[in-house]
Each structure stands twice: as C-alpha cells, then as structure tokens.
C-alpha cells in the first residue's frame, strides 16, 4: 500500500509543488467513540468477562472435604496437566476430525462454488437458485439436521444396505457410531461455510484472465492451476477457517452420530465435565487449550497462505 501511495504522490510532487494538497483533516469530534461504544460494551460483557471467568475457573482448586462441584479460586496450574493427560486423545481426535472434515468440505465445496460462480456465470437466475440450495439447510435447525443424518446412516437405512450390497461395508458393519459418521456430519453441517467464500472469490475472478491464460498457451488445467486457483485462494483460506474452527469445537455431531469410546471429541468432554461431572476446572482448562491451539494453528496457516489481510 505504501508503494501505491508513493506512486500517487509522484505526479503531485513533480508538478513543482504548485498545488500542495492539504492532508485530510482529522475529525475533531468524538463521534467515532460513540459509534464504537455499543460494540465495545457487547464484547466486554459477552466476550471479555466470560473469557476472564473461564481463565479463572481453569485454575480453581477443589475445596477440601467439599461436595461434588465445589471449587475455590486458586492458581492450580496442574489442572492443565491433569486435563491434557486425561483427555489428550479427544483433543487430538478433535483436530484430526476437524482437519478431515475441512479437507472433505474443500474437495466437495470447491467444485460446487466453481460451478455456481464460473459455469453459471451470466445466468443470475440459476446462480441464485443454486446459492439458495447451498444455504437452504440453514432454514432448519442444526440439531434436527444432524438427527436426520442419524436416520440416513442408520443400520436399516438404504445407505448402509447399499454399501453392504456393493461389499463396500462388511456384513453387519455399520456407519453410525463410527468416525466416518462423525466426519461426514461435520462435513455436511459446515459445507456452506466453505462454498460461500470460495464462491465469492471465484465470482470476482475476471473471466478475461482465464482467456488470457488460454491465449498464452496454458491448457485449461494449467490455467486453472496458475490463474484460477491462486486468485481464489483468499476464498479457500476463509472457507477452511470457517469450517475448521467451529468443527474442532463441535460436539453435536460427535454426540449424535458417534459413540462414547472412539469418536468423542473435546467439545463432548467439555460438555460432560461442565454439566454432568461438574468438574469445572478441567472443563475450563480444556476450553482454554482448545482456544489457544486453534489460535496458533490458524495464525500459522494464515501466515503460510500469505493472506494476512484476512485477519
């Protein structure tokens, strides 16, 4: 940006300083403060205060001789070590499932976005219809849709029976209560978050650039690799973040489509620790760990993708 500004200043400077452009006047009123205030109050009450409370809770220690769920403020850092030692499989599984779901959503979502944005270009009615179809699942509740998936993947439903007929699934094999079901559910539920940002960046792509690629001896595949894909990367980065972040913390899919042994994710553990076992410090420390890991992963990813302007 500074280079652009420099170029812009060039001709004015070359004009011999005849026209000295005054610097834009700084707004003297405090209106901006009042405009920011509602958002700041909202964030303070519903984000900053809960996060601080969460951090504090994660360091609480049990009251000696107290009842179940009785904790006192403390600085018990060992909570983190305990939580990680007990629940690291669920934590790593969460990120593994989220990663698989993100990849699956990318593989399914990119072609969908491409068809809507590029193939249906110039046919706004068709584009609108397809976009409505992408967003349509949001018209019903997240939980309901996941319960519907349980029906679809049930042992006596057509998916399992068809797979068994094709010998892709062994006799007596099942889909519910398997990692496949959980990852499928995550993929399905977060797919629109992948499709929409990729659609937006492909829609902005100038079709003449693709023609220029063809004109400069690039085959359609090469043009896609060297022109279309790099220019849609901001959408891909946004989409993968929008899928990966909520998917890592999700517990609806793992509790409705999974089982309690080899598919449970960290969200499920946090839920159980908070509301069933009343083990608040462990639940809080797991939440903090989840947040920090996501922050670090996303930060590294965005830096790597070279699209810092997204953040």
């Amino acid at each position, binding site marked *: 940006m500074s*280079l652009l500004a420099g170029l812009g200043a060039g001709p004015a400077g070359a004009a011999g300083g005849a026209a000295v452009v005054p610097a834009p006047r700084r707004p003297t009123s405090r209106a901006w403060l009042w405009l920011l205030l509602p958002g700041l109050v909202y964030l303070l009450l519903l984000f900053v205060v809960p996060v601080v409370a969460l951090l504090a809770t994660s360091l609480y220690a049990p009251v000696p001789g107290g009842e179940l769920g009785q904790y006192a403020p403390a600085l018990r850092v060992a909570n983190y070590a305990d939580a990680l030692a007990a629940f690291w499989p669920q934590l790593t599984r969460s990120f593994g499932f989220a990663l698989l779901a993100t990849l699956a959503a990318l593989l399914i979502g990119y072609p969908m976005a491409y068809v809507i944005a590029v193939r249906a270009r110039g046919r706004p009615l068709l584009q609108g219809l397809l976009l409505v179809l992408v967003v349509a699942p949001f018209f019903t509740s997240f939980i309901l849709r996941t319960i519907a998936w349980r029906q679809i993947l049930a042992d006596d439903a057509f998916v399992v029976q068809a797979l068994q007929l094709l010998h892709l699934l062994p006799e007596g094999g099942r889909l519910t209560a398997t990692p496949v079901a959980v990852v499928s559910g995550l993929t399905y539920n977060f797919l629109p978050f992948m499709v929409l940002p990729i659609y937006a960046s492909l829609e902005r792509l100038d079709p003449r650039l693709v*023609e220029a690629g063809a004109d400069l001896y690039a085959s359609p595949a090469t043009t896609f690799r060297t022109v279309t894909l790099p220019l849609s990367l901001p959408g891909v980065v946004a989409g993968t973040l929008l899928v990966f972040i909520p998917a890592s913390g999700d517990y609806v899919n793992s509790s409705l489509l999974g089982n309690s042994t080899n598919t449970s994710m960290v969200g499920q553990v946090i839920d159980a620790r908070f509301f069933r076992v009343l083990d608040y410090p462990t639940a809080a420390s797991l939440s903090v760990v989840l947040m920090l890991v996501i922050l670090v992963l996303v930060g590294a990813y965005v830096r790597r993708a070279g699209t810092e302007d997204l953040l």
Partner: protein
Amino acid sequence: MAGAGALELTGVTKRFGPFTAVDALDLVVPSGSFFALLGPSGCGKTTTLRMVAGLEHPTAGTIAIGGSDVTGTRPHRRPVNTVFQSYALFPHLSVAENVGFGLRRTRTPEVERRVREALELVELGHAGDQRPAQLSGGQQQRVALARAVVNRPAVLLLDEPLGALDLKLRRQMQIELRHIQTEVGLTFVHVTHDQEEAMTMADTVAVMNRGRIEQMGPPAELYEHPRTVFVANFLGQSNLAPGVVVEEGGGTLGVDVAGHRVLVPAARAVAARGTVLVGVRPEKVRILVAGQEPGPGENVLGPGRVTDVSFAGVSTQYQVELPGIGTFGVFAQNLLGGATVPLGAPVRLAWAAAHTFALDGRDAAEGTTDLDEAS
C-alpha cells in the same frame, strides 16, 4: 516462428442466436504487415479477432494461420497472442512473471533473458518486480504488449489496446507500437474504432460494418477512393450530393447535381449510370467569395451561404448551405491567420474535378447509420 505466415479467413461466419456478428468474411493478412480492422462498435471486428485467437468458434468458415488450418484448434495451441482491451494482466503475478507466462508454458529456454529484453523493448526494464496494480494505465498497457510480443507469435492480435488511454498517451503509444512492429517484424492485427489510429498505424485497413468488410486497402487509397457511403463517412468526413449521370466519355462522367454539371473521373466512380452520389473531401474544397472565379478543371456548386464558422487552430471549418443540395463542410488551412470568410456570406464552392468521386446512389439509404455509435 516470426513472420512465418499470414492469416487467412475464408467464409468465416459467426452467429449469436438470430444475430449475425460476422457474415461470410474473407480476409488475407500478408505476413509482416500491420493490419487494422476498423469499424464502429458492434460491427463484428472484436468477434473476428476472438475467432482468430480461438476464444470464439466460427459458425461457418475456416481460419488458417501460417498456412495451416486452425479452425478447430484450442486457443492455447494457436501461435497467436492477444493484447486485450482490458490488458487482462494477472494481478497475483509480478510484471516479469506476467511477461514470462507464455514462455514458461512453451518451455522456451532463457526465459529471464527474453523477459528482460521484452520489458526493455517497452521501456519497463526497471518494473519487473512490481505488481501490475502498482503501474499506471499506460505502463500496464505496455506490459500487456510485452507479454504478447515476447512469445514471437505468428500473428499478434491487438483488441483496442489503446482505448483506455488518454489522447496524448494514445498518440505516443501509437508511435511506439508502430516502432515495435517494425523492430520485431511480426504480423499485427489491430482492431480499433478510431479511424485516425487505423490510418496512422496500419499498412492495410479493412473497414468493417455489420459483420462484413466494406472496403480494404492502404489508408491513403481508402481515403481517396472510398467505394461506399459508409467508408466515405467513417474514414474522415465527406460531402455527398445526389446526382444523375447525364454524359459519359473520355474517361470522365458528367453528373447533374441540382442543375450544376459536375465532372467525375470515371476511374473514381463506383457506378457509371443512373443515380449516383457525388462526393468530395472537405479539405479539397475551397470557398469562392464574390468576384472570385473557379480555375480550369474545377467543379463548382452554389451559390450558397456560410452557416457556421469554427476555428480549429490549424484550420477553419466552414459549413456552407447549398439550396437544393445540402450542407457541405469545408476545411480551409489557416495560411493567413484565422477565418477569412464571415458567417452568412454568400459563397460558391469549387474543387478540382480530379478529386471528385462517385458512389452508387442506391447506397444512400443505408450506410450513414451507426455513425453516432462510432464516435
């Protein structure tokens, strides 16, 4: 590959639904020439160019480049490159990467040296590491040119590449383009709606209208010998007056124009009998004020009245209304300063009979359309 071959279109037609954009076009572009396709917007010139590039497929006809038929060939397999009207530079690549794009696809050796030379050719040797968005419009235009020229295509296609530039930069780029074309010796096909641009740059100009080529030839020949009303009006300005051929002989036609006898060299007449349109270019006409007499071998019309005088620096442009004929324009060079004939003065118009041309009278009904769109 440079200058290996000409471009040849045979019976090329392109229809978009019921609309015929290009209508049975036949065209031969000689190797190494600077060829201009000139016409108003919607005349089919850009569609023609896109068919040569392979970005549109002709409904009928064949396209050959360097003697081999490429009608069914995909764009990336054609030995042509395009300088797009919008430049279409890749925003995510540096200037040097943009210029080297085609070379990398064809696995040409010494990409870096060639890119550097191409950028130096367009005087942007210093800008290789910059992004297109950091350059001005004129610089981006030159990058687009370098990106195409560097591949040494059999035919270089230019789709109104100067359209987005302001007038001064445009004139400068016209000279540069011409210079680059002679330097690299490639065949250039330049599409434009700017008749001045076409005339100053091209060896051969084809004037297109409604999907067809109206007339084709060197600029001076098109200007001096227009064969249709459309060409007479689109390429420069023309004074046209309807008349009837009354005599013929000795290589000269005598035409009756509202009671005046006007002589036209038979070689400059498209039609030799019946109704014709007699034409003369405004700069060929001189104004006779009271007391001045025409010279020998001059056609004379009038008397008429000066209805408009506008001073344009190098010349003064008069509008003279001739009763029963119409309004004629006259460009008088300001050899003695400004305007010499006042508004409202009764005058006659005279010009050398040798500069007169005659068009087919049936042409009058059409032809003058599309002119507003063109300007």
